[in-house]
């Protein structure tokens, strides 16, 4: 499968949410490498190889970014904007994965060019289904940009 081995970047401030996410990936036997950034600044450093991520082997370009919107410091909406305005990074699909059902947020994200917007359900079964669908779609069904190299 085309992009199945590409790493996944999860930008998520909540440890519990991240732990649940990882657990679901494990249970679903998904083997992609998962990198985590805890806030917006951290994520932008990771993507641009700044700060602690000078070594690009430690911060490879992700095949897909999962982004929580409500982040401490540089907020998720801003991170999305920066990514989508950056000629290098804008090709990376970004899927917002958030609790916010605010129509304004949904609108702003799509205006910025987000590739998907998913609400985090509370129910664990729903959450498992959602993550499964997400992975199946992006790592099985879809051809990611840097998977076809000349």
């Amino acid at each position, binding site marked *: 499968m085309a992009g199945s081995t590409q790493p996944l970047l999860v930008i998520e401030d909540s440890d*519990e949410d991240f732990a*649940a996410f990882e657990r679901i990936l494990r249970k679903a036997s998904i083997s992609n490498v998962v990198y985590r950034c805890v806030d917006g600044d951290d994520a932008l450093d990771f993507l641009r190889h700044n700060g602690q991520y000078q070594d690009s082997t430690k911060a490879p370009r992700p095949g897909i970014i999962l982004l929580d919107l409500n982040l401490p410091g540089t907020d998720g909406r801003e991170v999305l904007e920066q990514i989508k305005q950056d000629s290098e990074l804008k090709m990376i699909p970004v899927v917002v994965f958030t*609790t*916010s*059902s605010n129509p304004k947020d949904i609108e702003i994200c799509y205006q910025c060019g987000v590739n998907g917007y998913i609400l985090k359900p*509370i129910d*664990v079964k729903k959450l498992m289904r959602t993550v499964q669908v997400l992975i199946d779609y992006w790592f099985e069904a879809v051809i990611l940009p840097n998977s076809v190299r000349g």
Partner: protein
Amino acid sequence: MSQSKDDSIVQSIDLTAYDKEFLHLSGSVQPHGILFALKEPQLEIIQVSDNTFELLGFQPQELLNKSLKDFLTAQELLFIEGCLLKDFESVNPIKLSLNNSAKVKNFDGILHRCDNILILELEPKLTQEERDFIRFYHFVKGAIAKMQNASTLSELCQNITQEVQKLTGFDRVMIYQFDGKQAGKVVAEEKREDLPSYLGLHYPASDIPEQAKKLYTLNHLRLIPDINSQPKQLIPPYNSITNKPLDLSYAVLRSVSPCHLEYLKNMGVTASMSISLNKDKKLWGLIACHHYSPKYVSYEVRTACEFLGQVMSLELTNKEENEKLDYKIKLKTIQSKFIETMPSTENFMDGLVKDKTDLLSLVDAQGVAICNNGDFSLAGNTPNKSDLHDLLEWVEAKIDNDIFYTDCLSKIYPTAEKFKHVGSGLIVLSISQMQKNYVLWFRPEMIQTVNWGGNPQQSVVVEQDGRLSPRKSFELWQETVRSQSLPWKPREIDAVLELRSAIVSIVLRKADELARINIELARSNNELDAFAYIASHDLKEPLRGIHNYSNFLIEDYAEILNAEGVSKLQTLVRLTQRMEDLINSLLHFSRLGRVELSVQQTDLNELVSNVIDVLSISLKESHVEIHIPRPLPAIYCDKVQVSEVFSNLITNAIKYNDKATKKVEIGFLDGNHSKKELPTVFYVKDSGIGIKEKYFDAIFRIFKRLHTVHKYGGGTGAGLTIAKKIVERHNGEIWVESTYGKGSTFYFTLQGKGG
């Protein structure tokens, strides 16, 4: 009257002809004095009145072409020649004694020039007493003091009639005042007790023709000692210098026009005197004196009267200015009252409604109608509401620069004839045409308000066949003012426009305030919106943690835990789900009022069937019978929100139902209301458990539940609150009727008044 054939005077009493009469070219004088037309500098007599023989003893032919000098003493001649260089006003009258051999006569001589011709008029002194200037001075001084002390115009008029009566001894002294259309009325009167009163009488403009009015402005005092005396012709009729009849505009002896004679005759008057009252160089009115026998008034007394008239003219301006000032103060008081009350009222029009009496006195109207969004609120005498609606419809197009006014409405709007007794005069002030906010002031037909100062049937005793009599004049005047109200004064129109500016500035201020409040509201709404989302997000995150970790415990440690432990964890999971439901409901409810309604024509049949489709997926109830007795109408509403109302009500109808077959009926009531345009009442009826009457209101309160969580599928208690809020946002109402144990019916409307 004897008239020479070549005389061009029209001896007709046709009023229009009278208007065309050249009164000042009458070619004759009253017989009580002599008139000389003199050529300067030699004072050659070129015309003389045909009564010199009676008064002087010379035939006119003996005097013509001679110099006046031949008849004067050296002293008199010197005096006259001195006068010719001065302002005649200051020298008149000149004491002259023209002597012939037979007799010596003392005269008052009055000089003036007209068309470069010197005119000398002589009036014989009837009494030999030396005029006492000091006596006059005292008299006039007292009269002036009284006039100046008068505080109102009507008091001033009353005072001057008394003073002139005292000074002259006329049987009747009146003040005539002309209105804007030159019709007149008697505003003050001093008379012999036995005479009928003319106070309050009106007469048409034609009673005093233009010609005569013009002469009144030129010559401020006019005396007719005896209307039965024969006028004396000037000899020759044509003046040799101008080759025209002599212009007698300023001559005190000018003969009386036939029309005026007829007028006086019809009133039974023998002698009359009138003094002009001018204001701003226009004839404002007259002091009219009548006597019922011949009466001569000496030149000095006339001069004193004329002087009083001039003082009165000055005072008129003062008094009217004072009244204007008083009116302005009153106006400002009224306006400031409005300005105080208006901002405190919800709708600025309510402020107007509160002070209807002030609105009436603002323009001296008898009725006022305030139209607010097409609803009328009335005070005083006005047409009825249905007439007002028609009138407003007609007048809206006529309003120019926010105002329309007329004092004869039926002339332009014939329908008004039927309410002319209250609405002959109309001012319409438009405050907002968009909102249909108007103020309409009404005045009755003038005839309704005319005051005769007594019974008109008895007030005029002298009745002649001629049409020029007070009674006939009054009738004629009444004809001319049919369907007319008293005219609106310019200051009243200004006041109305000023009121409008005041209102507009208040409204604008309020609008500004409102805009500020709206901005503030929008800001706090946005904050609230953001707050609701952030709060729900921040609440959900730990909740999700609890939920997930409980689940992980169950998954990972189920074999270590006993059944009780597992069940407690399951409870924990269930509670987190419940908590999430509550948070979602609260968020949804808090946002409902702030989402713009998207109203469109909606087929309720389609809407309800969609709702049922969605519900049957989630409910999977096999024993539900939904019954819609007849097709539902199409209405204007917000599709999404109204779907939610039906969805909540239908869900409840099924949920709170313990029957084997759960029946739900959806329909609407027949609008058999007497009132029109009542909104359709929809209902959702169930065969369920019913609601006790004491909870009829409570069930609509947020999170108010009547049952435990475990019964009837346990909702959050927000469904009905949300339904109520949606219905209210559609200007509707929702209520319930229920028989406990038998079932409930929820009724609601979606288009309230104006919805």
